[in-house]
């Protein structure tokens, strides 16, 4: 992990060096890029929330649902994992209007990315829930708890801790995938990068800084997930020397 901080510091220094070498031009494109970054962050947060909201029911449906519900869940997971995010994005963007569903591009973006990452997330949830020791389930039966209660109060809380690192990786994947939305004309960071490039032609600086932005956001995500992991594990690990 020190390696990562080192990498970030190195890149930031490099970018800083670049900017010192060309201070004035910064003002030309930085505001535009910052606007784009805001949109990127918006889509990332929206997509991540949707992904989690979709993944948990999908996983539970796949594991415990009645047959037709299970098939629905499996269908969703296989389709969204088996096709690429860009295809899904374009499909939702170009095809939904044919069915009379008119959505704002931003909504389409969050929907597509959230569903895509949610499908991978469902497998993460499934893995974590399966990993909870069988004895915990048996204890809930011995205490005459209905299955939904057992899942909600006993199993899922324990699965939560195991889930956090893989979800962190998925959130970063979602962040990277947001760049795709520039291809459906959403003015995110990637779009702004191209736009600013057309205007100022400071290609190297722009794209380097853009890469640094993404790195910065993903570092924030990683740090956030680690803090979340520590908080979630406090009950389980408390007292451990």
């Amino acid at each position, binding site marked *: 992990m020190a*390696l*990562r901080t*080192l*990498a970030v510091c*190195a*890149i930031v220094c490099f970018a800083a060096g670049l900017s010192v070498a060309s201070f004035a031009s910064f003002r030309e494109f930085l505001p535009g890029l910052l606007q784009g970054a805001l949109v990127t962050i918006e889509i990332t947060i929206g997509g991540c929330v949707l992904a989690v909201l979709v993944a948990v029911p999908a996983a539970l449906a796949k594991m415990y649902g009645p047959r037709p519900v299970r098939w629905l869940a499996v269908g969703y997971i*296989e*389709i969204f*994992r*088996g*096709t*690429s*995010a*860009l*295809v*899904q994005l*374009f*499909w939702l963007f*170009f*095809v939904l209007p*044919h069915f009379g569903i008119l959505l704002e591009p931003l909504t389409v973006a969050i929907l597509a990315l959230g569903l895509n990452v949610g499908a991978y997330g469902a497998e993460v949830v499934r893995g974590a829930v399966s990993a909870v020791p069988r004895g915990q389930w048996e204890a809930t039966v011995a205490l005459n708890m209905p299955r939904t209660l057992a899942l909600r109060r006993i199993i899922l809380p324990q699965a939560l801790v195991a889930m956090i690192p893989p979800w962190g990786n998925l959130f*970063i994947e979602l*962040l*990277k*995938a*947001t*760049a*795709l939305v*520039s*291809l459906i004309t959403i003015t995110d960071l*990637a779009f702004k*990068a*191209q736009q600013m*490039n057309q205007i100022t032609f400071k*290609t*190297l600086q722009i*794209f380097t800084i*853009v*890469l640094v932005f*993404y*790195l910065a956001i*993903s*570092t924030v995500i990683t740090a956030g997930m680690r803090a979340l992991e520590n908080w979630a594990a406090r009950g389980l690990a408390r007292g451990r020397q």
Partner: protein
Amino acid sequence: MKFWDWGYTLEILPALLRASIVTIEATILGFVIAATLGLALAILRMSQNRWVSVPTAAFVEFIRSTPILIQIFFIFFVFPEFGIVLPAFAAGVLAIGVHYATYCSEVYRAGLENIPKGQWEASTALNLSPYVTFRDVIIPQAIPPVVPALGNYFVALFKETPLLSAIAVLELMQTAKILGSENFRYIEPITLVGVFFLIMSLAAAWLIRRLESLLDRSLRNPGR
């Protein structure tokens, strides 16, 4: 407006099939880059020399954490400023290849770290050079277990090729978009593309599982 036009579908099928060849070419070339560069990165990262291992690690982390699309743009738009002008296909494949090389390097790293220390020590005791050690002792043991993981990245790389449409490479996605805009109907081309990817990735996933069990068996009975 008709829901699904089969006549139109048949019309556009040849163009899409031609484009799928470009997609497959891009996938294979990209994966070749990823698999070989990834191994090199993994070995470099293991170096005892910190001046080698740290920058390599920084490079890997940096590439892994940033979007492929931006990296494609970087190679396509920024490299020319330094005199390196690559055609769109090459730029795109290079970008995807390097990006996935970083993923593959993590996989190789795990495989290499799984080799018991004793293997290295025995090689030293037999006075084998590092090159020979890697070639004859370490790599033959490290690679087979990681092949399934590499296979998964092959499939993932395949699914990333639509990104090349951003720099107008005439692969599947780009062709579908062009067909769609020419004929003002997007449903059929994009759905066909989606179906194509779905079938290919399900087939690839099945192949990888077969490969896994094949390797599992041969690992348990080496020499068979």
